[in-house]
């Protein structure tokens, strides 16, 4: 296959599948940086496979990418020797949601973007996961809860608790 054509084909597949694959990995590992590492490695391997080595595109490219991502996840689990698990948010169900969620969002408008992102990276993995799922992928709390096998109220509480912790970093 012509290399330019292969690159164009790769990029089309990349844009077509990136969001879905990223969400898949994010809900498996939780950590945003681990998700980025695994997703980047999957596409880099696929790029080499298709573009540089000239192999034919698999019949179902997305299934192929997911298999590769699962290999990455397997390696990560092995390295950590731990099971990715749910958090103990159930213990905090007595907490209440903020009176004015919009006020918290408005507060962040005054913070420098880079400082804000550094702050997000200081949150727990589970908190980063729900923030990225909700704000990056525009998933509703119900959709996130379904992916995580948790209650919608739990996810919602975790999200607002994360924003509250983030706010405290800047006050």
């Amino acid at each position, binding site marked *: 296959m012509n290399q330019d054509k292969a690159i164009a084909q790769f*990029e089309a597949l*990349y*844009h077509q599948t*990136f*969001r879905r694959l*990223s969400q898949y990995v*994010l809900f498996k590992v*939780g*950590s*945003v*940086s681990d*998700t*980025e590492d695994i*997703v*980047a490695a999957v*596409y*880099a391997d696929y*790029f*080499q496979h298709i*573009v*540089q080595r000239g192999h034919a595109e698999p019949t179902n490219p997305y299934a192929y990418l997911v298999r590769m991502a699962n290999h990455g996840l397997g390696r990560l689990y092995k390295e*950590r*020797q*731990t*099971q990715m*698990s*749910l*958090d*103990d948010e159930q213990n905090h169900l007595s907490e209440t949601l903020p009176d004015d969620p919009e006020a918290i*969002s*408005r507060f*962040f*408008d005054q*913070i420098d*973007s*880079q*400082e*804000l*992102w*550094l702050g*997000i*990276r*200081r949150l*727990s*993995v*589970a908190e980063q996961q729900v*923030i*990225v799922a909700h*704000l*990056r992928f525009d998933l509703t709390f119900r959709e996130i809860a379904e992916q995580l096998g948790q209650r919608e109220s739990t996810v919602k509480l975790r999200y607002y608790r994360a*924003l509250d912790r983030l706010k405290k970093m800047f006050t």
Partner: protein
Amino acid sequence: MNRLKTVVQEQALNEDAMLHRIRSKQHVIHKEESFMSMKRLLPIGLAAALVIAVIASWSFFVPGVTAPVTTGTAAEKPASTPYAMVAIDINPSFEIYIDSEENGYAVLAIHATNKDAKELYEANKKVLDDLMGGTKEDAIEAIIQLARDNDFLDEDSSDAENGKYVLVTTAILDADEDGEEDEEEELDLEDKDEAERNQEAIGYQIQLALQEALAKDPDGTVKVAVIKATLREVKFAEKDKIPLGLFIIKGMMTDSDGDGVVETGEEPIKVSDFVKNDKNVEALAKRAIILERKSDRDEIKESRKAENEADESEEPEEDEDSGKPDSVPPVTPPGQAKKETVASGS
């Protein structure tokens, strides 16, 4: 759209940025593979090419910067003009030359800039050469780890109460994007803005990587000062033959004995000596972003003890982040001497 959402959309799993990185990385790999096939086909030609490359690397010249002080190898020789430089001063002192944004800020060359660095480089040539073409973050982490493994970051090596410091200084070497030759003072506004943005971005990427590295620091006692340098400072440091970070802190030194004279001396000051003076540390905090991890070992031990007790009494599935650092070190923004700390596992 509010800023929080904008930040997350730009920084988390950025689709375009990742594609760019993948393509840049593959470009480097592809070049290496082409090189290997040439080796198989033309062994004699390769031998000649290697001889030329070695000779050329000895005379490698970075615009605005003197020839490197390392022993040259083909692997060290940059494939193109470096766009930026990241200087690491612990002692030892290293300079990492990196490519432009289009090429993913890939590492082009690593130079040892003092005696200890040269010895470390010689003893760990393979490790450092393997960083070529990779990311600057990996290179910085590897150098800090090498320094740690070789006892340069031992507690005894810095008996200052203010702790052990690593200086990470960034500088844009080739800000002239439009290709027209102009001095730093005469750079087009567009070039200057672009260079400043890129320097911010490089510094920011480094901060993130360092924060994660520090979070894994078993001792939790190392602090990293991330400094932005100007091209003018790079040139003056070069002229004085002083590693960039040490040149900058030399300029920050305060009158320690109150006699009205700042004793800077002829030789560059060591980072460990510099931070022994509280006023120097304050001056550093005004210019640099200080990254650190909580150093109170007793408190860390207490946290670990509490975690262990919790683990014993709870089901393993309830430990949401076991095996992973769930917090990264805090940041002290430039201009604030405040040093927040966050305990591991908090």
